């Protein structure tokens, strides 16, 4: 594995600020970023990502090249929650098993954004439709997670399913990505140039500040896991690697390009800590966010950001 790549990734401002955020929690600094600002930064990142993806899409040709990765995305978001639920069901109550399955079947937009920023640094092209893949993968796993839980509950709670399906398709962050994707797709080149100093120029800087907040949040939520068994920690480390490995093997075989394969791998390996807790608190309040949030945010997210990005990329490079 290319040690240069690890260093470049580790010494990039977003990763450094993420580590800085973890550090702030470790030394018990009183540093805090108002949640309203975190929401603004996240809104900006989704906006910027969507516009950029839409622009790429406007220049691309469509065809199998485009549809294949989207189909892989759909398959991943169906298979991952099923196999993880099957594994967890024997070791855990249904509620938490379903919630963890949804968590690992869904994706993390911030991990994706960091991966995009890594690809841009490395000068590797990727398709705008990968942004659509991100949007597509956010919700199905959540619906499946709730379906799996309901299938085991005595009293069928159809209202919880309704809630979660509605949420899955009207989810704010999915909406912003898709909207920005469409805008990027249909605006003129001149219009795009007008927006670029904002959407493109500020990208790395805003991402860095956002990652500082992610570090603060990941650090403060990690605490919850300490008292739990080793199972959860192992799961959070191993499942992303399995998902990544499978994707890394399948993509070249399907003829998916390097950049797109890398982004699919990141999607497969990443876990949700935004959409899933929101959906679960409404639909399955019995599931304990003190378990699945530290898993995805406190372990899997740093794993992917710090080790995963250079690792997956190096492995893929060997195959291309």
């Amino acid at each position, binding site marked *: 594995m290319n040690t240069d790549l690890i260093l470049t990734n580790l010494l990039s401002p977003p990763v450094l600020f993420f580590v800085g955020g973890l550090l702030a929690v470790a030394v018990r600094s009183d540093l805090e970023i108002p949640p309203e600002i*975190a929401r603004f930064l*996240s809104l900006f990142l989704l906006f910027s990502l969507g516009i950029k993806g839409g622009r790429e899409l406007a220049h691309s040709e469509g065809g199998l090249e485009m549809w294949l990765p989207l189909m892989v995305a759909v398959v991943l978001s169906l298979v991952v929650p099923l196999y993880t639920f099957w594994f967890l069901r024997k070791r855990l109550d249904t509620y938490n098993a379903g919630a963890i399955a949804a968590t690992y079947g869904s994706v993390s937009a911030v991990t994706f954004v960091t991966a995009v920023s890594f690809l841009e640094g490395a000068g590797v092209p990727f398709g705008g439709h990968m942004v659509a893949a991100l949007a597509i993968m956010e919700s199905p796993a959540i619906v499946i997670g709730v379906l799996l839980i309901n299938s085991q509950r005595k009293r069928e709670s159809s209202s919880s399913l309704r809630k979660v399906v509605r949420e899955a398709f009207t989810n704010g962050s999915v909406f912003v990505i898709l909207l920005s994707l469409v805008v990027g797709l249909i605006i003129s080149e001149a219009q795009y140039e007008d927006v670029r100093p904002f959407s493109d120029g500020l990208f790395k800087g805003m991402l860095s500040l956002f990652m500082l907040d992610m570090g603060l949040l990941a650090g*403060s939520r990690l605490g919850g896991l300490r008292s739990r068994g080793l199972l959860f920690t192992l799961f959070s480390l191993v499942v992303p690697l399995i998902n990544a490995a499978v994707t890394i093997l399948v993509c070249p075989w399907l003829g998916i390009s390097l950049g797109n394969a890398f982004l699919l791998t990141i999607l497969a390996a990443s876990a949700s800590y*935004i959409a899933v807790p*929101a959906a679960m*608190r*409404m639909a399955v309040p019995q599931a304990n*966010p003190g378990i699945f949030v530290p898993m995805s945010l406190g372990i899997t997210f740093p794993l992917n950001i710090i080790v995963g990005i250079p690792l997956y990329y190096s492995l893929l490079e060997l195959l291309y």
Partner: protein
Amino acid sequence: MGHMENIKRVEIIIPQPELEAVLVLLEKAQVEGYTVIEKARGKGQRGVQDARGLTDAFSNALIIWYCRPADFEALEENLRRVLNEAGGVCGVSEAQWIAH
């Protein structure tokens, strides 16, 4: 003291994502008024809510509702059901209010 009317002060604390559903309950009961404070932190049977992060998943909302005893009783069962399913508490105290 001028004219003061006896009334109930109902305080409902629920998960923020459940807020709209509870307000719909109140609307359906055609209550005269209520006040809502959002994004509160808290702790309860379902763990700590720190009101942070990118969604309302870890926030609570607090509803203050001054009403006549009968109004509260009419809603009590529905409220109990929501609290049992989604969590939270509902406290009621005696109050007077400035009739206006």
